[in-house]
Structures are given as C-alpha cells and as structure tokens.
C-alpha cells in the first residue's frame, strides 16, 4: 500500500472530517504522511488528533490507533465522551486501538546503546490488530523528558516517521510550542509534509482559538489564521474567507412585512438572498422591522432563524405582541427559531460558529441578526468586520435572506460602523431620529438598495398596535416635519388657507364695489359732459343766428345809406363762410 503511494505524484488527501479543516486544506491532511500539530498547553492539540481519529473511524471507515504518552486510556475515554464518542465501545468494535506509553525517568537507567524498537513493535501491533489507517502520537515529545540520550532519540524519531510513511499511515503527531521554535524539541525537523499550528489567546478577557497551516508541502492551502472553537461537538474551523463573489443570485422578491416599505422598494420588497442592514439609534424600531420581516417570512411558510444579542426571545415576542405581531405562533409551528446570547458570553468565533450550526440545523430561508453592533463587545472592529464578511458570504452562498440590524450611537454618524461593511450590504435602511418641538419621531429612508429603483423619500415610521406603518412625511415649505408637528402644520395650513380665502373674497367684494362706484362716476361725468356739449351747441347756434342777423342788419343799413356797398359785402361774405 505504502509503496504504491510513493509513486503517486499528486498528493492524495485524507479527509479529517473536522468541520472546516478539509476546506482550508482542500481535502484534508496528506494521506500516508505525518502531520505535526503544534501549539501551547491547552490549545486543543489532543482534541484535534482525537477528532481526526474518531471521524476517520466513524465516517471514513479508517480505523485508527491512538498512542498517548500523557494520558491513561481512562482519561482518554473521558475526553472522548466529551466529544460524544464512546471510546470503549469503539475499541470493542475494533475501530480504535489505544496504547498508553508511560515513561518514568526515575525508574529508568540507561546503560549503553539502545533503540526504540519496543515502541515500533507496540505501534505495529496496535495497527495490525485493527487494520488501522490512521495513527496519532500524542505527544511523542514525552520521550525527550523520559530518555536522556537525545542523539538516539532523534535518530529513532526520524526512523519512526519513515516507518509510518512506509506503512502508509496518515499520522498526527502533536508537539508543545517552544520559545522560538514551533515545538520544544524541534519535531518540525522530522515532519516535512504538513505542520499545523494551534493558538490560544486571550484578548480583553475573551479567548479566541486560531489555527494556521504553517506548511503543507505539495498543496495549496489557506494561509490565514482561522478561528476555531471546541465545544461538545468537537472542532469547528471557519474557513469561509476565500469565497469568491460568484454567488447564485435571485430575482425573486420577498415582502419586508411592511406594505409601505415594499412600495418604497420598487413596490416589491427585498430580493431573496440579499443582505439587508437597518441602522438606527436606540429605540428607533430596528427590532420591530426585523420582527416584521420574520413575521412575513413565516407567513409565507418559510423558516426564519432569529439571532438576538440584545433581548431574550420571550421579551421580543411580548414586545412584538404589543404592536400587533404574534410571533409565538410561528415559534410553535417551528417556523421561527430564536437564539439569544449575550455577545460577551463568548468570543466572536463562537458566535459565528453558533450561527453556522444554527443554520446548518435549522436550514432557514431568512436569517436575522439583531444587532451586529453588539458583536463589537466581543472583538475589535476589524475582527467584527472579518467575521461579518465571512458570515455574509456564507449566507449568500446559501441564498439565505439576511437581515442585520445595527445600533448607532447618538451624535455619531449612523454610518459609523456600518460603513465598514457597507459594501457587503445590498439594501440599507436607515432609521433616523427626528427631534422637533420637544418630540422625538422616527424617520425611515432607503440609503441604498442594489438593483432596484427605490424611493428616496424619508417616511415617518410609526409603531402602532396594528403594526408598523409608514407615513409620507410633511415636506412643504422647505422643511421636514413629523409627529404632532406634522399634524399641527397640517391644521395651521388649513386654517391659513381659509383665512386667505376669506381675505380674497373680501377684497374681491371691495373691488366690485369700487368698480360699481367708478362706473357710476363715469356715467355722471358723461352726463355732465353731454349736458355741457348740448349747451355749447346751443350757444354756437345762437351766435350764428345772431351773426346772420347782424350781417343782414348791416346790409340793410348800407343799403339805406348807399355808400361803399362792395367793401362791406366782401367782409360780410368772409365772415359768413367761417361761421359755416
């Protein structure tokens, strides 16, 4: 078996079955080789090795030998039970063989040359007894403290690793971290194929475990530090940083649970599988919006996982009852599942893993995390961002519609924290306080929403016992008014309108009267004018008559006198011509 593998150029991999590890290593540990797991005390080396062995035996049909140099088989069995495996049962079924190698330096005297053939024989015997494919040596360094001839030890270790390779064993050896070297006794010198470092740190009283693949010959692998955690179900490593941006996208639209909000979003609501963020200060109704979305999802018969980091499930159910939302029925129907935990209860990774597990188990279509800002209590901003990125990527891959809420603080730009993850968000709703006239009201607007023509208007956000309603905000006269101010403004406007109308009416009447007066005046003047012209006419008529009479009189007089009649006649003719 082993001989055949030497000829294979492409490295064959051995799946560990440890959640996440096979993704980072692109298939598992190098098959037929030895992998070194190093780390400080309590970093989880033994557990790692144990799970590798158990999964191999249970899931991949590869029995394994656990050779322990530290713990007795009894202690080992206890540890296995903590991971949910019954070691004794597995031993009796021939899936696992254990051997506890005990070295008491005080009992041992060294005289002359020796080798470690005894160890080889024990290991070989155990391997043969169950036909093992996997081997764990935990931790072989104990030899260094038990035996003093390091020259022999080193030569024998080298031989041991060759021997394991020749037998085609996929092996794990563990080693305690040294000061400057990966392991105290330089085990990394012998293990050339794969070295994994486990790290356990405590930062600000919150512990985080991290895993890094230091070396993996002949294989590409993720080089980041991957957070992991250990719980009652073993190891969980979170590898999902390297996901590409090739998510499956949906054109399906789903209701937000608030009809008016649907209308603001192109009339159809969110895209399925998109990531929605609601930012708002305390008491702006983030949770209510989230609950409305959950309610709508359950109404469609979908499953919704609600991660509450602020409130207990019963409190949320009660509070939402007060705005006319009955979430308890969905919980009963197993469509809605709450999970709440204090953010500081455990590290960020633990949260992420709990989320993962919840999703894997419940398989929801809608996921709500309320609020993400509380996560910052469990880690630094960049850690939170990295966690959220991975979470969102993961959810997108699963086509789960994700609803995140973010608590913003007074006096801080609402985009503060959110802007760091804004590129991950498809639809971003902002809930804003509008303080006016000693009153605080909520305004909601869509900051962005990818792939749809959304409303740009701020709507007033009201929580009533009938649920959430959005009201078009008063936007007249160049200002934005909400709440009672909006109502007052409406009333004021109405009143002033009536007043204005009355005023106009009055003016119109005045004008009408003025016009009437004017017309009367014009009439009077015309009458006067007519009278005058009549008089004038009469006067000129009289005058003409008088002239004519006068001329005749003169003619008569001249006639009577018989003197210079021609001259008089001439002038008389002229005058009469003018008068006509």
């Amino acid at each position, binding site marked *: 078996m082993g001989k055949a593998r030497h000829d294979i150029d492409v490295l064959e991999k051995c799946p560990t079955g440890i959640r996440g590890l096979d993704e980072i290593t692109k298939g598992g540990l190098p098959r037929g080789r030895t992998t070194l797991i190093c780390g400080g005390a309590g970093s989880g080396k033994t557990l790692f090795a144990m799970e590798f062995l158990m999964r191999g035996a249970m899931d991949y049909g590869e029995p394994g030998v656990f050779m322990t140099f530290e713990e007795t088989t009894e202690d080992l069995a206890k540890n296995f039970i903590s991971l949910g495996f019954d070691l004794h049962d597995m031993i009796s079924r021939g899936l696992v063989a254990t051997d506890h190698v005990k070295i008491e330096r005080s009992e041992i*005297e060294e*005289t002359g*040359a*020796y080798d470690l*053939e005894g160890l080889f*024989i024990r290991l070989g015997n155990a391997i043969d007894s169950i036909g093992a494919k996997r081997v764990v040596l935990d931790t072989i360094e104990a*030899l260094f403290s038990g*035996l003093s001839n390091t020259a022999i030890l080193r030569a024998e270790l080298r031989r041991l690793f060759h021997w394991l390779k020749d037998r085609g064993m996929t092996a794990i050896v563990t080693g305690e971290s040294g000061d400057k070297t990966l392991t105290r006794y330089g085990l990394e010198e012998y293990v050339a194929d794969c070295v994994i470092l486990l790290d356990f740190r405590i930062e600000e009283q919150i512990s985080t475990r991290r895993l890094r693949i230091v070396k993996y010959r002949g294989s590409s692998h993720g080089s980041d530090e991957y957070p992991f955690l250990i719980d009652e179900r073993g190891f969980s490593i979170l590898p999902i940083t390297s996901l590409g941006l090739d998510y499956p996208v949906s054109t399906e639209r789903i209701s937000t649970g608030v009809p008016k909000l649907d209308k603001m979003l192109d009339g159809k609501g969110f895209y399925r599988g998109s990531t929605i963020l609601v930012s708002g200060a305390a008491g702006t109704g983030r949770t209510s919006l989230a609950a409305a979305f959950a309610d709508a999802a359950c109404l469609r018969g979908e499953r919704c996982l609600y991660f509450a980091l602020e409130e207990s499930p019963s409190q949320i159910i009660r509070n939402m009852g007060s705005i006319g939302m009955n979430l308890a029925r969905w919980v009963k129907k197993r469509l809605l599942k709450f999970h709440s935990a204090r953010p500081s209860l455990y590290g960020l990774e633990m949260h992420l893993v709990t989320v993962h597990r919840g999703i894997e188990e419940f398989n929801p279509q809608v996921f709500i995390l309320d609020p993400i800002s509380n996560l910052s209590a469990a880690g630094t901003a960049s850690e939170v961002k990295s966690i959220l990125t991975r979470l969102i990527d993961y959810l997108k891959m699963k086509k789960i519609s994700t609803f995140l809420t973010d608590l913003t603080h007074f006096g801080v730009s609402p985009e503060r924290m959110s802007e760091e993850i804004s590129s991950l968000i498809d639809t971003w709703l902002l809930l804003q306080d509008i303080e006016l006239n000693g009153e605080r009201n909520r305004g909601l607007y869509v900051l962005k929403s990818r792939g749809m023509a959304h409303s740009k208007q701020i709507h007033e956000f009201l929580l009533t016992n009938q649920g959430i309603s959005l009201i078009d905000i008063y936007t007249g006269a160049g200002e934005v008014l909400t709440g009672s101010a909006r109502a007052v403004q409406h009333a004021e406007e109405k009143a002033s309108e009536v007043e204005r109308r009355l005023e106009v009416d009055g003016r119109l009447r005045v004008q009408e009267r003025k016009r009437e007066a004017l017309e009367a005046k014009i009439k009077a003047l015309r009458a006067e004018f007519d009278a005058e012209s009549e008089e004038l006419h009469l006067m000129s008529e009289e005058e003409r008559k008088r002239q004519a009479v006068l001329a005749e009189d003169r003619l008569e007089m001249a006639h009577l006198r018989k003197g210079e009649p021609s001259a008089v006649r001439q002038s008389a003719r002229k005058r009469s011509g003018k008068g006509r």
Partner: protein
Amino acid sequence: MKAVSSGKGKKAKTDSAKEIWNLRLYVVDQTPKSITAIANLKKICEEHLAGKYRIEVIDLLKNPQLAKGDQIIAIPTLVRKLPQPVKKIIGDLANTERVLVGLDIRSVSG
C-alpha cells in the same frame, strides 16, 4: 515466551532467606544489541547475584503484545520485577557500574 532461567536458581534458597531477583530482559530478535545485552546480563548476575536470580528473556518479535504490560519502548530493556520497586535499565548493559546502580545490587552484595 522464551524463558531462560539460571540453573543456579535453586541454590539461592540455601544461600539465604532473602528474595529471589526476578529479572526480565526484553529484546527484539537476535540482533547484536540483544546478544550483547543477554551476555552482559548473565555475566553481571553471576558475579553479583550468584544463586539468587532468575532471568526471563522475552523476544518481542514473537510476542509483541507483551511490550505493553511492562511499558517497553527501548530495546533492550531489563526490568527488575523483584524485588520491588520495579526498576528499568535500558541499553545493552555494557556499563556494568551503571547496571549495578540501576539494579541496586551494590547494597545487596556489599
């Protein structure tokens, strides 16, 4: 199990009422190291424990499962089963002084 016991074991009873030295030597096959160890052991016993020792040589190649019981790692390993407490000496027993110290023989013979 391949046991080689000294023919002089019975003599020990008459020698003293003291305990029998029960020694067990683990070897693998007939390697030079094993042969040297067996020879060295016999020589030391004859010189210092004449008549009150018993040697058991165990070849792990034939009985690999026996290695577990006495916690054998190194080959060859000499185990002093009796008298108590159990002592172990690893190596080919070339350094007689150290073997004597390791087996606490000095005090007995001295």
